[in-house]
């Protein structure tokens, strides 16, 4: 039986190695901030104001404020533009959800994403969670490396992590990293 199992698992491993295709990918990042949740939300909650705290965003412009359907256009320092629209914005839950419009592979090597940011109380401070779901830049079965699941994960993780570090620095009143 042990040998059966070993063979079975090997077969599965071989199978997994061949995996490619349109599988949605998860991104999940969080950071602790030494400030009250309300103080964090005062900075984070301004949908179009992301350029004031995200170090990768050179310029952010918005329309529609924080209403559902509001949009923001973010020009990244590395080049490329993100067009995003606001789906839900809840001050009482200190959370908002948004998704991308048309992809710009120069900005992020992904074909679509949606994401949610949330502030939750954490002891005397707050924790900010940023979760998202994306599809890689080329959803065909033979994507080039630059548009693979791995490339998408790397870029999205970096973008979320940089943003959270920048937000923390801004709220805590320290120089941006």
């Amino acid at each position, binding site marked *: 039986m042990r*040998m*059966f*199992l070993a*063979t*079975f698992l090997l*077969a*599965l491993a071989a*199978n*997994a190695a*061949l*995996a*490619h*295709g*349109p*599988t*949605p990918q*998860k991104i999940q990042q969080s950071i602790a901030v030494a400030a009250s949740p309300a103080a964090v939300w005062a900075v984070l909650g301004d949908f179009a104001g992301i350029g004031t705290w995200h170090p990768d965003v050179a310029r952010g412009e918005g329309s529609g404020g924080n209403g559902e359907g509001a949009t923001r256009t973010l020009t990244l320092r590395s080049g490329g533009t993100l067009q995003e629209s606001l*789906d*839900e914005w809840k001050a009482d839950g200190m959370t908002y*959800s948004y*998704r991308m419009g048309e992809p710009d592979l120069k900005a992020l090597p992904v074909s679509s994403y*949606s994401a*949610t940011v949330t502030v939750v109380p954490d002891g005397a401070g707050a924790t900010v969670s940023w*979760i998202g*779901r994306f599809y890689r830049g080329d*959803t*065909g*079965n033979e994507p080039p490396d630059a548009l693979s699941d791995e490339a998408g994960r790397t870029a999205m993780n970096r973008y979320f992590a940089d943003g959270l570090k920048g937000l923390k620095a801004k709220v805590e009143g320290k120089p941006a990293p």
Partner: protein
Amino acid sequence: MIRALAAAAILALGLGQGGRAEPAIYVASQEAGALTRLDGPAVVGLRLGSGPAGLAATADGTLFLTHPEAGRITVVVPGGGDRRALPFRGQPFGIAASADGRRLFVGDWQAGTVSRIDARTGSVEAAAPVGREPAGIVLDGEARVFVAERGGDSVSILDADTMALRARLPVGRAPFALALSPDGDRLYVGNVRSNDLTVIDARGLLVLATVPSGRSPYGVATSRDGGLILVTNQESGSVSVLGRDLVPRAQIPVGRYPEGVALAGDRAYVANWFSNDVSIIDLAGLREIERRPVPDGPRAVVAVPLRGRGEADR
């Protein structure tokens, strides 16, 4: 050896047991590559590998799963304790099975086609071009195939015998999931980007109404009597419940990023893709009564009807 072990695994799944009294609920987890039977005393699973995305079942309990990443369809057969793979040239995603289980209708996400396949041999009998990104597919009792064209903002209706296009109806933006009412008079279409539900007169092939849902509706199902329509709102983490009159009845919080939904008896089962669990909803109280962990990335859920009672849960 592998075959013997697979047979053992399937028996453990409960597929080999005849004469069951309860509907069987199956969940496909794309990330984990797993098929899980949910409705037993414990969650038991079968490793299929390579991201199963689409899931269809016939009344005898045969399951069909698409693997877009691998260009393959897995058939899991009840009773005989067997499963087999059908090769598919392309990127199979949405899938529907004929009532007798002989024909499969499979969308190719990348090619923008729907193929009719012999479910025993896997050979392609016919193929039809459809709109971009064919997503949900359903078959009605009058040999018509409804296809959600996510990239075309439309639903196409094919003749299942000739695969000719009978009609194409514009719907909301990015239609993904489809559900047919139990008596086949209505088709419900979840539009992911316009955050609404299009209701189609399935006999007259006309759009009857468009009503708002929550954010990113990714799954739709109806109750057995057609009186309730459930819509999963992926981005809102909730399920909207509407009456047949399309009046909202409830908004039920569930796990994170809910997608597929299936109804059986007085329960609804919602696959929560991000939180890796299934929300079980009591349809009488319209509230979540349990959240059960499943392997990573559950997206599709199906209820295999009660055997021998002529019921047709969707």
